[in-house]
């Protein structure tokens, strides 16, 4: 496996997992903006998507042309097995760290 997952990368991967079959650029952007209420640019998002694809965390394929978007096709992203494993590892590491914390992190 190439490289570690960054925070934003993890966010993007999880958003794609949430969107299921409807994970394409604009949708991912909207989801992240809504849920995380942070402003990101399409440039940053597409760069991250490209990098994740290079690292083997994502597959992408072009959809069918639709009436919306001026007939332009969407590029759909799906998680690869590696991504699922990496996300799982990340989660278990987090859980472990959470449960072992000496402070009460869940206050409030």
């Amino acid at each position: 496996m190439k490289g570690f997952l960054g925070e934003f990368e993890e966010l993007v991967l999880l958003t794609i997992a949430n969107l299921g079959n409807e994970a394409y650029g604009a949708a991912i952007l909207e989801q992240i903006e809504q849920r995380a209420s942070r402003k990101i640019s399409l440039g940053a998002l597409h760069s991250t998507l490209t990098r994740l694809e290079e690292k083997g965390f994502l597959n992408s394929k072009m959809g069918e042309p639709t009436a919306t978007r001026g007939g332009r096709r969407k590029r759909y992203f799906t998680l690869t097995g590696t991504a699922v494993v990496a996300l799982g590892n990340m989660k278990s590491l987090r859980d472990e760290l959470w449960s072992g914390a000496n402070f009460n992190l869940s206050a409030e």
Partner: protein
Amino acid sequence: MRRLHKLTQLLFHLFGGRADIEDILGDLDEVYYSSKERSNTVVALWHYWRHVFSLLLSYSLRRRAKDAAYSPYYRGPNVSIMKSYLKVSIRNLKQQKTFTVLNVLGLSTGMSIALLALAMFIELQNFDTFHPHAAEIYQLNTKVIKDGNTEVFASTPPALTYAADAQVTDLKNSVHINDDFFPVVKKAGNELRLRGLFTSPDFFNVFAMPLKEGSTISLSEPGNVIITEELATRLFGEDTALGKVIETENWGSLQVSGVMQTYPKRTHLRFEILTGFETSPSFDARYKNARWTNFRSNYYYLRVADDKKALAMNQIEQLALQGKSAMAQENLSAAYQLRPLTTINPGTTMEDEFGLVFDQQTMWFFFGIALLILLPACFNYSNLSITRALKRAKEIGIRKVIGSQKKQIVEQFLVETVLVSLISVVLATVLFHLIRAEFISMLVGASALSFEITPSLLGVFGAFALITGIFTGIIPAAYFAKISPLAAMKNGIEAGKVSISGLRKGLLVVQFSLTLGFMMGIGVLAKQYFTVLNYQTGFNKENILVLTLEDHHPEIVRNTFLSMPEVGEVSFSSSIPGTLC
């Protein structure tokens, strides 16, 4: 929105070339409309452009552009396509043997003159660069102003230069040269007039011209000379020249105290024999300290570091003030300037020029002529190959039908012309080799040029051929690319119906007028040449002898000659009448 899209697409094309960005454009659209629904157009537009600019500089676009570059649809330089171009070119050239031979002959003849000019240009750039501190060596020149006219002399008043030796600080080296030394030697019944210089041992500190044998310091003894290896062979053959005595008619016996190694020809210094100033009594203290006017033949070279140059010049100008009154007596005033050694050739010819100087303007003129000779050859090729289009129309038609782009047809023909011009340059180099001896004997001072074929020169020739090939090929290539496949397939192109025949006619006119111009030029030149040989100048050239004064007093010379019964009349002039120098 449509106009907006056009602009966005243009921007993406600028930044990402042929990158596939369909989905990105779709995303941009969607984000724009959803943002417009939520707020208003202005905010939506602001976000749209924010996204566009972030995308333009993003990694994703760069990556997609790179992917596009390596896709099978990529149309950049490609080895296999170059191979195919080359193969087709060779086949075509083989098929049209007469055409190829004609073109190669024409081009190589035109090129050979251009190569001569090119080789000359390169050699002149390297003149006097072999001295180890060439960049720090300058010649001091005098700008003489008389009655409002300014003339620049290569020579300098001795009073100034000898003072400069002693009083200019930071002078690394300096040397005085006087070129009025012409010893006459009797050799096998002939009189040899040797080209000599008065100088001092400093000469060898300034210029990189080492001795083969003997010592440089001997130059400060009167009657000692240092000769070039070439002269040594001429005078003494295989014998050692060192220690021999040269009997001269005008300077008595001169002892050879040194023989120089053969030095590179590419220098402006021209001499066979060197002697010290001590050999002649005319270089006395009065000459060195008080001679401000009548300074012909006295040259001064100095070596000074780059950052000290302005300072040295300042000091020289201060010293020059001492000569102001002496100059004023003869109605003169003078200013001084430094001429870098490396700019002497090619440079501007000055008054009282020393050694060999190729005038830059004359050189440009020569290069212009060489180019003018090359041009008709190039146009000739262009024309012939456009005419060939009649035969090749089918090939181009088929190429276009199977999807060849304009650019690819242009490339195909460019490869072909470059190939022809490369073959031509090989032939031209052979021609160059054959005509260079003739050229050297024709041009004054060309003996300083070696025209040696070196690997770097061959490289320059190759580059020249490449440029000539592209220049020649671009017009026919553009023409071929324009041919409509339909017309080409149907019937070939009918003569006279070619779309840019105007251009062809233009080329033809230029080619013919240039050629005719040259033929007329040669005619005029030949006529002039014979006129010069036979022209009545208005004075009788028979039985008039020209002698140089060599620093003797004119009145004494006149009286001595007039006392001879054979001499009819004596006159003086600053230069030989009827010549340029």
